[in-house]
């Protein structure tokens, strides 16, 4: 093939834009498909920051410690080679963003400032106020706009990816997509396609995600044969603000800056928080985790808050909610460091957190699982080999995945401020991998017979014509809501097998009911309920994968917590000193230190397991006390 080739990147968040930049920078043409203008992608929501072990505070931080924190935080399910590559690239990624004009906070000397985040003891997180995701996304958006102005990138905004175009060998040679404004369906030939479509938050109904994060593209890729890995690992953010339309994130940086989590010691204490004296408050995280205190990793904080509210009945007013208190911090400090977060609470709840403790509760936040992707290790460095076509590749040749849509970087639990990094890093290695793949292919996708493209378009034209005729009694939005309710109730913080089985039954019932939906809208312009009806099916498929993967994993690990299959508490503070416990841990670890691999079949997800290679760091028990 010629030196310059045409690629498609689906999704315009951090991962998609970084992939695009890498391809455009190498001289290629890129079509970017996105359901919203890329500047409105969900990456914009991340508040806290981006990790990189630069050691500017003289704490002896090092990428190796970042690797260890990440692998340990993910309870040794993360893909180790990619994690090492990511942590070593991190300082360079932050510097690159700095050069692109990200308004990172500064020290008095004018250098980049770093803060502390959950799951680490180092100042490792670069941040731009409380809107780091927004600033990072904008920086990449601006670079892509520059390439767009130069004619290297073509943006297709308000376009939805429907599925792949495959040749006779099963190789992905392009995509079919839908213009959400004109409802036109067309194909996009590409040497390789990258799905950087984010997570499946909306499968859980209300979550901290944007409402565009339905997971529909990943769900469809799974239907077409892509393996969906570690679907059960769903991070519930310990501190979100419950709302009618969604859960709003309360960044971990609030605790990083000294926010304290507490409940009244007395059940359903009717007093206002300010009237409750210090001695009658229970700072349960500080008491139980004297070393990390309020900065224990997310799964630990989430479960503790959940236990306090649900098992002990000590939630505020006897309901779901605990205080996140910053009233002891001077308002000036809060405004300097986390003003954006303060404003979100003030705006959407109506109380000023500078004077009144905030009320928060865990909310669905992030999917560690996603499309299975591979990596090729450079044997010398044990990081992804530069320019290997295997990096970020799904099991469908020519189809790549990056960002939250892939499964690789976070294992059983994601550390705060690692997601922005993993999105950018996966794009940085995914773009060159796609280019290398295209270069190695004997025949260019562009030279493939029109037949493949015509057939794929015909399939989707017919499918949408059929969808449009659907006029049963069911409402697709109602089906999605019921899916979300059952997933949130049974598939987030605490998991029991009987409830997971019921969840799968419910999903199957919803699938049956979906066949009787009314598509609600027969318009030919911006017919959102038509596209949504199609998405709901993909969401149901993902819901089934997530619940089935959770049902079959009989252990507790990271964000996946099953009380019926948990190890007992070790007898010593450091579990490694409890020989009996270590025996139990080893046995469990040998059985379950595996990647869950879900493959689609008409009768339901087929689950198998793959060992997690550990060339970088040997697994050990995870403890934070």
């Amino acid at each position, binding site marked *: 093939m010629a030196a310059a080739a045409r690629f498609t990147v689906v999704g315009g968040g951090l991962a998609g834009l970084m992939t695009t*930049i*890498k391809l455009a920078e190498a001289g290629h043409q890129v079509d970017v498909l996105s359901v*919203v*203008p890329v*500047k*409105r*992608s969900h990456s*914009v*929501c991340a508040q806290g920051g981006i990790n990189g072990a630069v050691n500017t505070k003289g704490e002896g931080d090092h990428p190796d410690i970042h690797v260890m924190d990440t692998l340990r935080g993910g309870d040794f399910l993360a893909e180790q080679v990619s994690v090492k590559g990511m942590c070593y690239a991190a300082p*360079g990624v*932050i*510097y*690159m963003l*700095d*050069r*692109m*004009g990200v*308004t*990172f*906070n*500064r*020290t008095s000397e*004018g*250098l*980049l400032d770093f803060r502390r985040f959950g799951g680490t003891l180092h100042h490792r997180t670069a941040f*731009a*106020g409380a809107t780091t995701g*927004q*600033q990072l996304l904008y920086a990449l958006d*601006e*670079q892509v*706009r*520059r390439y767009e*102005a130069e004619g290297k990138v073509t943006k297709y905004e308000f376009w939805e990816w429907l599925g792949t175009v495959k040749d006779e060998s099963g190789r992905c040679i392009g995509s079919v997509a839908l213009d959400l404004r004109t409802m036109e369906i067309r194909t996009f030939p590409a040497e390789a396609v990258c799905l950087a479509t984010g997570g499946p938050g909306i499968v859980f109904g209300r979550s901290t995600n944007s*409402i*565009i994060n339905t997971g529909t593209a990943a769900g469809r890729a799974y239907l077409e044969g892509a393996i969906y890995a570690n679907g059960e690992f769903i991070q519930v953010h310990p501190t979100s603000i*419950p*709302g*009618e*339309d*969604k859960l709003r994130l309360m960044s971990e940086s609030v605790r990083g800056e000294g926010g304290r989590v507490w409940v009244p010691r007395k059940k359903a204490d009717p007093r206002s928080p300010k009237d409750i004296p210090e001695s009658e408050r229970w700072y349960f995280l500080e008491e139980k985790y004297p070393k990390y205190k309020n900065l224990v990793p997310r799964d630990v904080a989430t479960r503790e808050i959940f236990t306090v509210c649900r098992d002990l009945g000590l939630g*505020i*007013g006897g*309901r*779901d*909610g605990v205080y996140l208190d910053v009233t002891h911090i001077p308002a000036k400090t809060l405004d300097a460091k986390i003003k*954006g977060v303060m404003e*979100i609470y003030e*705006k*959407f709840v*109506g109380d000023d957190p500078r004077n009144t403790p905030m009320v928060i*509760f865990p909310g669905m936040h992030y999917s560690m699982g996603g499309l299975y992707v591979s990596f090729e290790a450079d044997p010398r460095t044990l990081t992804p080999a530069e320019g290997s076509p295997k990096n970020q590749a799904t099991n469908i040749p020519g189809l790549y995945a990056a960002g939250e849509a892939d499964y690789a970087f976070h294992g059983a639990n994601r550390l705060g401020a690692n997601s922005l990094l993993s999105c950018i890093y996966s794009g940085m290695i995914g773009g060159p991998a796609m280019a290398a793949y295209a270069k190695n292919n004997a025949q260019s996708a562009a030279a493939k017979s029109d037949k493949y493209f015509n057939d794929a378009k015909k399939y989707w034209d017919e499918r949408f014509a059929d969808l449009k005729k659907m006029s049963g009694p069911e*409402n697709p*939005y109602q089906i999605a809501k019921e899916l979300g309710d059952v997933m*949130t109730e049974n598939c987030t913080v605490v998991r029991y097998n009987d409830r997971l089985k019921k969840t799968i039954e419910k999903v199957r019932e919803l699938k049956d009911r979906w066949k009787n939906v009314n598509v609600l809208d027969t*318009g030919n*312009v*911006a017919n*959102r*309920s038509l596209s949504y009806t199609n998405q709901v099916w993909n969401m149901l498929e993902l819901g089934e994968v997530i619940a089935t993967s959770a049902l079959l994993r009989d252990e507790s690990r990271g964000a996946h917590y099953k009380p019926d299959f948990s190890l007992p508490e070790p007898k010593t503070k450091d579990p490694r000193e409890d020989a009996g416990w270590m025996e139990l841990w080893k046995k469990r670890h040998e059985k379950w230190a595996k990647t869950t691999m879900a493959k689609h079949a008409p009768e339901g997800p087929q689950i198998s397991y793959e060992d997690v290679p550990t060339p970088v760091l040997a697994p050990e028990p995870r403890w934070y006390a």
Partner: protein
Amino acid sequence: MDTAQPSSVSSQTITFRIWRQDGPGGESHYDEFRIPYHKGANVVSCLMEIQRNPVTVQGKKVAPVVWDAACLEEVCGSCAMNINGRVRMACSALIDKLEQPITLEPLKKFPVIRDLTVNRDRMFEALKRVKAWIPVDGTHNLGPGPRQSPKDHATMYVLSTCITCGSCLEACPQVTLDNHFVGAAAISQARLFNMNPTGKLNAEERTRALMGPGGVQDCGKAQNCVKVCPKEIPLTSSIAAMNREVTKLVIKDLFFKDEESKGHSGPG
């Protein structure tokens, strides 16, 4: 979920009057919907409720309302619309603070695509016009950027929070459906990149892009933009700053043509 942030349903109802338009340039009318009141509800949660049961007060089944939304946290910039005649973000419009019936209409300064969703491409085109980016020399590892004082950072940070929602254009008397005034958002972005230590190197290019028709001099100083900006960006200061830059450049062009032709050969 029984949460401490109360979300109880009461016997009250909320009434909406919503602008309906089937397509660009199509016929329009209002549909009226009545839905149960939830404490803590906002305009978006109500639109979602209507989606699940799109039936008007007259009992007529209609297509669900089409509107743009994504993050619901006032940071993606999607859901700007006219609510009771005033432009604002639908996600942060709390029902308790709105007079009923609540009237929802699309932005008027952008072409309607359908119902409440409009085409705001002109805003992104304006960002291209002013070259709102830092032209970095590639994404390879070239070390950190130049130092910045915390003071400069503070100014730039505020400017960098613009969400391209279009509120400033909507409120601006100088912006019309058929003219090409770049609007406050893009002018403010030009200021942001001209302030950046690396962006400064191309400041003149950006300033030049703001000269002439559709540029900063089309601003009529009505100051509406700054009043409606959901991110409280000092847009009028940005316009004033860029106005000064443009004026300086005009003078420079008049008197210093020779200097310009020497190019960038450096001092000496």
